[in-house]
């Protein structure tokens, strides 16, 4: 049975606070998330072990510079606990890779979210997405498909996987809800209280 956490803070801030707590309290040794790497707005995936550096993360940013499933596959098995914030399709890719013995789920706490899709890398490279971001998040709140996201995202029917440890509901939500969907996640929550 899932537990639902409600928050009055903006959902991305709540998520960042949660990640900070997990890292600070040594529940995990590192956070795997999208992060902004410069003022231009370039993003990449990072493995972050320093709490101060969590200010740079942008876990819900609608860009996919690489498939996180593939990245995680490259450096598993992981001996230390890591929390990873990934899109549903990236999570599914990682699950598939584990079946092919190209990755291992052990020691990961997975956070996924209902995904509004990502912009084209081409638009990102041409710096066209900054002005579209507000409209994108409005679309997500209204449960609509933003016109500028990739065609494959527009037709994606697996936007909300519930088999991760923590699931964040964003689509159609004013401020999102956090679901604890595994025992591992509930244990972290109990410790937090």
């Amino acid at each position: 049975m899932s537990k639902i956490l409600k928050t009055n803070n903006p959902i991305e801030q709540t998520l960042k606070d949660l990640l900070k707590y997990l890292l600070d309290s040594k529940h995990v040794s590192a956070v795997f998330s999208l992060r902004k790497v410069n003022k231009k707005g370039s993003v990449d995936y990072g493995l972050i072990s320093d709490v101060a550096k969590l200010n740079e993360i942008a876990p819900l940013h609608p860009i996919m510079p690489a498939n996180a499933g593939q990245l995680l596959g490259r450096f598993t098995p992981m001996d230390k606990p890591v929390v990873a914030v990934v899109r549903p399709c990236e999570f599914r890719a990682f699950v598939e890779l584990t079946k092919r013995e190209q990755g291992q789920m052990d020691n990961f706490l997975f956070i996924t979210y209902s995904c509004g899709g990502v912009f084209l890398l081409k638009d990102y490279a041409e710096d066209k997405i900054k002005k579209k971001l507000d409209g994108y998040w409005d679309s997500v709140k209204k449960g609509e498909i933003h016109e500028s996201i990739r065609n494959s995202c527009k037709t994606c029917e697996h936007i909300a996987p519930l088999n991760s440890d923590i699931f964040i509901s964003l689509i159609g939500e004013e401020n999102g809800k956090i679901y604890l969907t595994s025992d591992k996640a509930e244990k972290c929550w109990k410790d937090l209280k």
Partner: protein
Amino acid sequence: MTEILKKGVLLEAKSGIQASILQFFQDTIEKKLFDAVMLPMKVPSGDSFAWIMIKEQDIITDAQPLAPIMPVNAAKALKRYTRKGKGKYKIAALMKPCEIRATIELTKLNQVHLEDVTLFSYDCVGALPMQDYINNPKIGDEKFSKLLADKNWNSEDVKPVCKICDKFSLSASDLHFALNDQGLILLSNSEKGEKLLTDLNLKAETDLTKWQNYIEEQKAIKLKNREETFEIIKGMVEGFENLTETFANCIGCHNCSSSCPICYCRQCYFDSSVSKPNSDIVMMRAEDRGAVSLPLDRIMFHTGRMAHMSLSCVSCGLCSDACPVNIPVAKIFSYVASQTQKTFEYSAGASVGDVLPMKEYRLDELGELGELVKSAEVQEGNHE
């Protein structure tokens, strides 16, 4: 100017440059001077070109010798054919000058065998960016036809690296098609080329001075563009912070390497398991620095490539065409190549006879380093 290049053969070009070149190759096949001709041909979908080895005279007319784009560097196509030694057939291959230069570099690296291959080049107006062409081939074809008709060597429509290319004309080919206001002049540039003209009973009687002067004028314009562009690129890549900022959007796809004609290694370090550390090392790096970017080592990949192939970089620009996040890879590599090649007094693709700097040790090279060593030795002696 060598003796061989004082005069050329004026070719009939009433039906256009492309038709004239095709007719020339049809004649060579008919006279059995070649068994096949390697030319670009439009793919059935109409939005790109492929290199085709053509034996049948009738099929030659389907080719487009001066293609508006460069989806694959011709040197790479020729490598596929001759990498395991010369084939059974005598081949003619028509390429852009940068493709000729890549072919020469690959020949030195034993990836291409030119024994039975005759290389033809032409005055290149530049290639259109791949993505622009694929988005609208019809407009691309119109633009390129106009560039050829106007003999415009300074168009804004061509790839950025073509705008700064000063080696757009005669290269190390055996024969060269020169475009001038009279139409098309065929020049021989080697003994192989001379022999072909003799076999075809073609007499080199057209003076080349006017064409050569025009090419020199265009080169001067391109060189100026090149200097200005390199000043900007220098600021983007010199210093580690600038370099990381410039490559910040890199997604680690390695398309630049896959498309590069010079990156020929079948076993690349960056694709090997050695370059993919396990979780312990990734976590150790994250703990050391507070955070680590993934995929790992993207800057090392680009600097490694610079160290590995910039001496042979011919600035064909395919790396930029292949980059999904618009990093100006070609201009960056062109700039780095200009520096490394200058250091070793080497010009990539200029001649098969020039020894690759990586293959040669000269006592007198890098004199300034020798001075540093001497000075260090003197200082060491003083301490003793």
